[in-house]
């Protein structure tokens, strides 16, 4: 069985929303996530597109913030629909 086809992917609507938010971060800002390294917003956008561990953490962070505003329903990322 092809693992890549069964791995749940976060929906494109969500990744696009997160990317739009990351695009507002000025280019002189870097973000450190412990020992995983330092990232510019551009690099984080790539990670979000790839949905690697760092990208998923950033999606989690941005969505948690948006949910805290009280205007978005909770969605469990692991069950997000497949988009590609």
């Amino acid at each position: 069985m092809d693992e890549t086809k069964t791995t749940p992917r976060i929906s494109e609507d969500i990744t696009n929303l997160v990317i739009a938010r990351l695009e507002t971060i000025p280019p002189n800002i870097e973000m450190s996530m412990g020992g995983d390294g330092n990232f510019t917003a551009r690099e984080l956008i790539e990670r979000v597109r790839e949905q690697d561990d760092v990208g998923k953490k950033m999606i989690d962070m941005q969505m948690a913030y948006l949910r805290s505003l009280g205007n978005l329903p909770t969605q469990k990322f692991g069950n997000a629909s497949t988009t590609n």
Partner: protein
Amino acid sequence: MLLLLTRPRYDPATHYLFYWSGFLVDEAKKRNVRTIDLSKEKAKKDKFHSYLLKQPVDIVILNGHGNSEEVAGQNDEVLLSVSSGAKLMKGKNIFIRACDAATTLGQEIMKMGATGFVGYTRPFWIARDVDSFNRPLEDETAGPILRCSNQVGLSLIKGKPIAQAQEDSLARYRENIDKYSASETTSSFLLPFLLWNMTSQVCYQ
């Protein structure tokens, strides 16, 4: 009161933690709290364990990289892990400013008899202005993030119970979240980082 603090410095994240932890050393000096400051190359396992074995340390503050089971010192040398050093935390208040250490390690430290523990259940993020790298204490991007977490250490140094130190820190996070929520500045991108670190910071006692 005796404080043992580690603050390695070997990459951008630890560079910032090193300088911002300096405020804790300054506060301890101001209050005549005896301090063992294991900075940079001194943040090594043998020194860390030796002080814990020989000195009546009350508060342990570790800054550095970590994961669910361990925390590192200079150049990623593991200082404290589930299998090495957790017993040395008995009777002490511990603050670990490192990714994920509140999960397995924090719980193990408490099982071994620590008085209290504050740490993070998820990665600890630092956002910073690359133009301020040589003046990290003037970095207005990193400042709010590190001030909020520093509050745990400041309150412990002032002699407050660990639950109060946690509450003081959470209050700082809330103040900053309110401040940046109300502003139209470009710094509003900090809000998710503040919320993430705040909701990842837990206290066990």
